[in-house]
């Protein structure tokens, strides 16, 4: 068995806790699989440390309208777990050394086969997975298969987790995904007032690094949460930018220019971190 700490990029990246990591999310195949490849490379160039790649799903019940629409766009291309894995391979072959975690609802993983999924994740060069509808009560088989392959199942912890924070924190590996607000994914104007308290409680419960996501969309918000966490996750705000430029991203002649715009957007978020 591989030992996780020696090989997993997530562990290497979080080893120095004085540096805050930036973790962008985009959906694989939004607006096309080809565009996703170039967008990931651009985000890495912009300073992203770990890339969260969303596997599109027909019923994304933890996601708000922005990522729902991204899923729909990607599903028009029939994008599946297999396509996401191929993208990871292609990114690795092109020299991308950032951490890569897949974000998938549980049913596609279950249908793919839990053990096969984690073996293939490792074989294609991914570092872990976030499964938003798989709470700790249900994640035993996934965690075991991940461990076998030197990968992390990233657990989520929410402001409503309350007494569960301790249990989740104790079991967390890779990093602990702190849900910054109640509700589904999506950009929000204001963050919760008690966010700092919540993040303090999470930090006290775990030795794993923490990353904050859900609703963080501006450099100001990134700056505001950075001091309470080891990493910041931004999804919907970037997906909104992709949506805005989807026509150019689908057109090979205009793709580079659109990719450059999204790179600039990500750079602004990254620079707010340091």
């Amino acid at each position, binding site marked *: 068995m591989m030992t996780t700490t020696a090989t997993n990029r997530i562990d290497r990246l979080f080893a120095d806790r004085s540096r805050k990591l930036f973790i962008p999310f985009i959906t694989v195949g939004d607006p096309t699989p080809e565009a996703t490849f170039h967008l990931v490379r651009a985000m890495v160039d912009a300073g992203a440390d770990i890339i969260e790649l969303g596997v599109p*799903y*027909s*019923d994304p*019940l*933890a996601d*708000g309208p922005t990522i*729902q629409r991204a899923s729909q766009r990607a*599903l028009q291309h029939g994008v*599946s*777990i297999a396509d996401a894995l191929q993208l990871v391979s292609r990114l690795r072959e092109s020299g991308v050394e950032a951490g890569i975690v897949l974000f998938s*609802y*549980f*049913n*596609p*993983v*279950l*249908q*793919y086969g839990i053990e096969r999924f984690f073996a293939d994740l490792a074989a294609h060069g991914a570092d872990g997975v976030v499964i*938003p*509808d*798989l*709470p700790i*009560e*249900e994640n035993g088989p996934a965690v075991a298969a991940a461990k076998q392959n030197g990968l992390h199942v990233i*657990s*989520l*912890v*929410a*402001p*409503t*987790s*309350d*007494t*569960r924070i301790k249990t*989740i924190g104790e079991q967390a590996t890779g990093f602990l995904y702190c*849900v910054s607000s*109640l*509700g*589904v994914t999506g950009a929000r104007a204001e963050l919760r007032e008690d966010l700092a308290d919540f993040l303090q409680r999470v930090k006290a419960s775990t030795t794993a690094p923490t990353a904050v996501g859900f609703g963080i969309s501006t450099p100001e918000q990134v700056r505001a949460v950075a001091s309470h966490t080891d990493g910041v996750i931004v999804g919907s705000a970037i997906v909104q930018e992709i949506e805005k430029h989807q026509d150019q991203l689908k057109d090979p002649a205009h793709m580079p220019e659109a990719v450059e715009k999204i790179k600039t957007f990500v750079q602004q978020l990254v620079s707010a971190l340091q």
Partner: protein
Amino acid sequence: MPSNIQTTTRVVPDENGRFGAFGGKYVPETLMNALHELETAFEEARRDPQFAAELNELLNKYAGRPTPLTYAERLTEALGGAQIYLKREDLNHTGAHKLNNALGQALLAKRMGKKAIIAETGAGQHGVASATVAAKLGLSCKVFMGEEDIRRQSLNVFRMKLLGAEVIPAVSGSRTLKDATNEAIRHWVSHVEETFYVIGSVVGPHPYPYMVREFQKIIGEETRQQILQQLGKLPDEVVACVGGGSNAIGMFYPFIQDESVALRGVEAAGKGIGTDKHAATLTLGRPGVIHGSLTYLLQDEHGQVQEAHSISAGLDYPGVGPEHAYLKDTGRVTYTSVTDAEALAAVELLCRTEGIIPALESAHAIAEVMKRAPQMSPEKIIVICLSGRGDKDVLTIQEALAERTEGGEA
């Protein structure tokens, strides 16, 4: 995975909310504490005689329970075989069995100090039931309903609004019950601290499938008692339609231990199980996760949920309650399916023989009995759960009959 046959005498669900391999809690972390609180509150309420008394008072003096068990003499004659009895859930206040559960959950919401309830609805029956109990108990109510169903069930939409509920259209996916449920869950995640989610069927994460069964099992308990009083014996068969499956579970559960009683669940075959327009989840689905529960699911090879189809909005659902998945695998319940056309013929037959317009959902159970009763001897007894009345469906029925006359699908 879920192939291991369990004995039907096992207590289900277990402490993890599992019916055999099925059920569980596959939901975002944000909801886990709320589910735990709900579980605790429900267990406390269940053991509290005052809660039971309050619920019984509402069921008897507001909902109109017990509902009768009617001998369908002319239907029996027309089919020329087994004697057919109808459990008259259509006579419940608001016209369907849905009120049994809505009353129970809303009373629990009140007990937990929640001021707002939300609900999803397909045909609109659960939405109407939720709006009704919200008015009765002084709670605010939001009902999530697929845009397509809003079109199909405009009368029920108006009823809900008249009762003071807000109807929120679900515009994602197929714009039917599954999408309304997604939207309700998303709203619940955002407002979990003050909102109680009244799920309308035996679906969703634990403890819902269990709790809804407990609130619906009154159907089967009354039926069992009534048939013993009327005939001095148990029926040979009990038949109910299955979408999510709450009327069926409510009807079947008190008969599970009566091994002489055959239990039949009837799914919607839509345009036919050879087509891609059906809702025959147990017949054609594979185990998967939908709305927080591991159960049979209509899905493609990648695990994307497929759209269901049925003429009946209440059966138009690609999942099914996890207890049904378990009862299918144990073999205790037999699941079959009937088409839109067969259900329509059943509506006509019941109208003309018994003077009852059944809901399109319930018509699926009648259609199954139209096939079975003639093959059975006159000593045999069949009970059908007539889960709802068809007033809400008359426009759909009118359209479908017109289409049939024009030479569509006879």
